[in-house]
């Protein structure tokens, strides 16, 4: 496996141009996601989904406009990958999480499993889709389409370790400028998903952008869940045994 590659999305310099959204669709041949006027500022895409792998959020605050480009987090402990029953989701040599479209049978399990609400099933196609971190481009030595298109380097692509360093520096610089609201999100390997391969510098609390404040990979609790299920199974067996007329 080569170095772990990732994204550092610095929302403090995102100008909301949506070039990332469009570049992603162009490169990956993602269909349109419907034509709905949502009256939610300049965001008519709404959220990440099967046909939106980059999503630019627009948050109108009292005196500013926050813009942020969201994407699959390529979690260290990826719930989607954990729960996929077909092996369609796999971890690549770049330590990213990718769906193999030719394997996915559309069971839909990954969809509610993702703690960030990223992956989704495209109903007319039947399969689950999400950002591949441009696996094909990376294999060809190219950077992903979205970061390539980003005019302000809000989306930075590179080895995750480097990005984390860069993010720390950027955060310190912003704090030095008195922008105490700046914070990193998803960069810590100690969080509920073991850190994101795509992490962010946010200018407000994560939920303001539609991000979960404390996401957890639910498979963390899987052993205990199986234990409870086993207990229930035994209870069931016992109850059934008790129901049986052993003697007449």
């Amino acid at each position: 496996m080569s170095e772990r590659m990732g994204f550092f999305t610095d929302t403090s310099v995102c100008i909301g141009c949506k070039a990332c959204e469009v570049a992603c669709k162009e490169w990956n041949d993602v269909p349109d996601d419907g034509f709905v006027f949502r009256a939610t500022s300049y965001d008519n895409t709404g959220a990440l989904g099967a046909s939106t792998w980059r999503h630019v959020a627009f948050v109108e605050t009292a005196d500013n406009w926050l813009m942020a480009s969201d994407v699959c987090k390529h979690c260290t402990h990826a719930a989607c990958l954990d729960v996929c029953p077909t092996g369609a989701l796999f971890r690549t040599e770049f330590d990213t999480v990718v769906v193999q479209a030719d394997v996915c049978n559309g069971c839909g399990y990954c969809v509610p499993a993702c703690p960030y609400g990223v992956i989704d099933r495209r109903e007319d196609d039947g399969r689950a889709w999400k950002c591949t971190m441009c696996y094909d481009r990376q294999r060809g030595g190219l950077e992903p389409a979205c970061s390539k298109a980003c005019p302000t380097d809000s989306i930075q692509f590179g080895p995750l370790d480097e990005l984390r360093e860069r993010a720390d520096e950027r955060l310190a610089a912003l704090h030095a400028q008195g922008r105490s609201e700046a914070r990193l999100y998803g960069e810590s390997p100690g969080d509920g998903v073991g850190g994101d391969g795509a992490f962010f510098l946010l200018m407000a609390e994560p939920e303001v952008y539609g991000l979960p404040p404390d996401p957890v990979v639910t498979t963390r609790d899987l052993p205990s869940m199986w234990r409870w299920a086993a207990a229930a199974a035994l209870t069931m067996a016992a109850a059934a045994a008790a129901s049986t007329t052993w003697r007449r």
Partner: protein
Amino acid sequence: MARERAMVPKAEFSSYYGRPVIKAPIWHEPNMPLYLYLGGVSGACAVSAALEELRAEPSRRLGTLARLGSALGCATGAIFLVTELGRPERFLNMMRVFKPTSPMSMGSWILAAHGGLSAVAAGSAVTGVLPWAGRSAALASGVTGPLMSTYTAVLVADTAVPAWHEARRELPFLFAGSAMAGAGALGMLATLAMPEEAAPVRRMAVLGAALETVAGAVMERRLGALAEPYRREPLMRAARLLTAGGGALAALSAVPARRTGRTGRGALAALSTLPSRRTGRGGRVAGMVLAAAAAAALTAGAVCTRFGVLRAGRASAEDPAYTIVPQRERLAAAERDQVSG
């Protein structure tokens, strides 16, 4: 001050235009809930079938019924499951991997094993060929059965859906109870004409209903605010009524069936005077009516439970409050721990 704040937690939370943070389960109605129901029933039937084999004098009729219930439940359930897939023709891709981290992968193998066993068991019972094989399969399905009925609880709980994940302890019991109640109810229907054989299935139905009711109550209590989606869900409310009521009726139906009301105790006994005052035949008919009503209620209850759980889960996923507020509280608690520690 700090104390006051700690006592009156801030109710407000911010979100992105009220949009959900996570994706709601995309599983459709009726496919997914019916699969859960049928799978559960199949599992419970399998347990009955196995237990029947363990009895000193197995009842052929009951055994066959249970094996058939297990096999049919599993088969129809599987059909619903497969049609729920976005690419049904790729169902067998589930068999590409054996993945302990995926309840659905484990479930697929359980389903495959269970389906195979119950098919063999039922086939043998119906055709009479290879009775030893049928018997072993029936016995083995006694192991896969309870797994079949409860793994689905893990399946739904191992998601980011708040009302499911946080209910991960109780859901298996709820599902087990619902499966037994459902299977018991079907058994009661099947044994309407042979009341003498009905006791075990009736007991199963009653115990299942009780288990489900208790598990549900415990779950809602422990979930706190996250219980709201369940409480608000009409099908869930209906399920609770139907299951509890059906369970009670099932218990009642035992009284006239035994004519003398020997087992009728307390309030049940008092109630039971009504049908038992009639003639024996009349009591029998009344018992049948009661049993049928109980079975219908329990079946409806079991089905409603599965629809209700799915809908409540979806509702909890669609409202960002259920995702954000508990996570915020968790963070706040962690912070408090850090501060005090």
